[in-house]
């Protein structure tokens, strides 16, 4: 059967669909920040940036960049009316104290029970850098991962046990990928949805792991 991978924007839109009105969300850095562009205008979502801002708005118009107003990825952003600035210790108190409803992170690997590896690809020559990932992974009420399901070499990034250094243990609740949306549960992976044309059996073959069928009435986030 023929199936089509979700594009990065389609994937971002898929994530955005599950973010409820009024949620406080941290979109980490890199690819997950695309999610902000796809939140329905009917929903009011408060974006938190760990460098000290709640109510983050979109990128400024060209020429209006203010490099004192940046997101965690160090890109210039804006602040919405109702937004606030605070210091780093307060910002991470929000994270660690479980006040962020959802954070969306990229990943190198996720285990079936929700262990996350996203800060270090295990290359001993690489300069390690962790940023706020470890705080976000264990601190948010729900941690979602957004990634391609397979590496360029075709290996599954969802694994029985992570082989890369961990970011957090049993912290990922959902995996939004280009091919399927999966839930990590103590009992293993559970399917949420598949791209059109991809079968459950084919998905299991790609990830090399059993995937439980979705519960009868699909759970919201």
């Amino acid at each position: 059967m023929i199936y089509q991978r979700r594009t990065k924007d389609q994937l971002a839109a898929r994530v955005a669909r599950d973010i409820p009105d009024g949620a406080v969300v941290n979109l980490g850095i890199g690819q997950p920040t695309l999610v902000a562009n796809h939140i329905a205008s009917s929903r009011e979502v408060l974006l938190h940036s760990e460098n000290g801002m709640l109510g983050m708005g979109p990128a400024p118009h060209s020429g209006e960049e203010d490099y004192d107003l940046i997101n965690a990825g160090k890109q210039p952003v804006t602040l919405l009316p109702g937004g606030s600035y605070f210091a780093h210790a307060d910002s991470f108190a929000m994270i660690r104290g479980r006040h962020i409803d959802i954070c969306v992170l990229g990943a190198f690997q996720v285990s079936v029970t929700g262990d996350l590896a996203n800060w270090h690809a295990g290359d001993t020559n690489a300069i390690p850098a962790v940023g706020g990932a470890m705080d976000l992974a264990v601190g948010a009420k729900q941690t979602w991962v957004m990634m391609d399901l397979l590496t360029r070499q075709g290996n599954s990034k969802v694994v029985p046990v992570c082989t890369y250094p961990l970011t957090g243990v049993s912290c990922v609740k959902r995996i939004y990928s280009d091919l399927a949306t999966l839930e990590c549960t103590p009992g293993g992976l559970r399917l949420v949805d598949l791209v059109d044309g991809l079968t459950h059996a084919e998905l299991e073959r790609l990830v090399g792991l059993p995937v439980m069928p979705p519960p009868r009435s699909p759970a919201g986030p």
Partner: protein
Amino acid sequence: MLNKVAASVGDALAGVEDAATVMIGGFGTAGIPVELIEGLIAQGARDLTVVNNNAGNGDTGLAALLAAGRVRKIVCSFPRQADSHVFDDLYRSGRIELELVPQGTLAERIRAAGAGIGAFYTPTGHGTELAKGKETRLIDGRQYVLEYPIHGDLALIKAERGDRWGNLTYRKTARNFGPVMAMACRRTVASVHEIVDLGGLDPEAIVTPAIFVSQIVKVERRATQAGGFKQ
């Protein structure tokens, strides 16, 4: 009369000792006290331990301090950046020590020093390489790692407005590590773009109260420059 206004960056930074632990504010492009770092380079202290979220961008500021060979060790959460080549070279050639700390743990360890907390248990990093060798504890069904405060000899921070008592406000996300670093060091020097009369700052909106600040020095406003992205 209590007057913490220094006449110049040079005056503000007199007497920094070799082997000092220096906390430097800033996250990405925002809140980097460039003029104070330049002042520290001119002052000449060496064998420093630097605490900063990053490890320098490009060739100015912290990167210049590193390039000058003044830093023995850096404590940070995210050294690797698009343009962190100065740090990268020093690190790869074994000429600088790195203590990598998750960003929230970094902020909280600095706060703990400022707030007189002897140690604290955080869930961050449990089960990871960054908690290796650290004490852990199961509290209320959750695993935590024991972390200790980071005390500093000198904090260099960039604020927006200040008064002669040392009260400070910040600008947008340039606030970041300034308030906790100011609490955690025996001496805190802040650059400001404006010095106002006593009472010129709203007492409800002062972010760093005078008690945490040793000296302030006025520097000209230059637009904050773009810098390396994380990814």
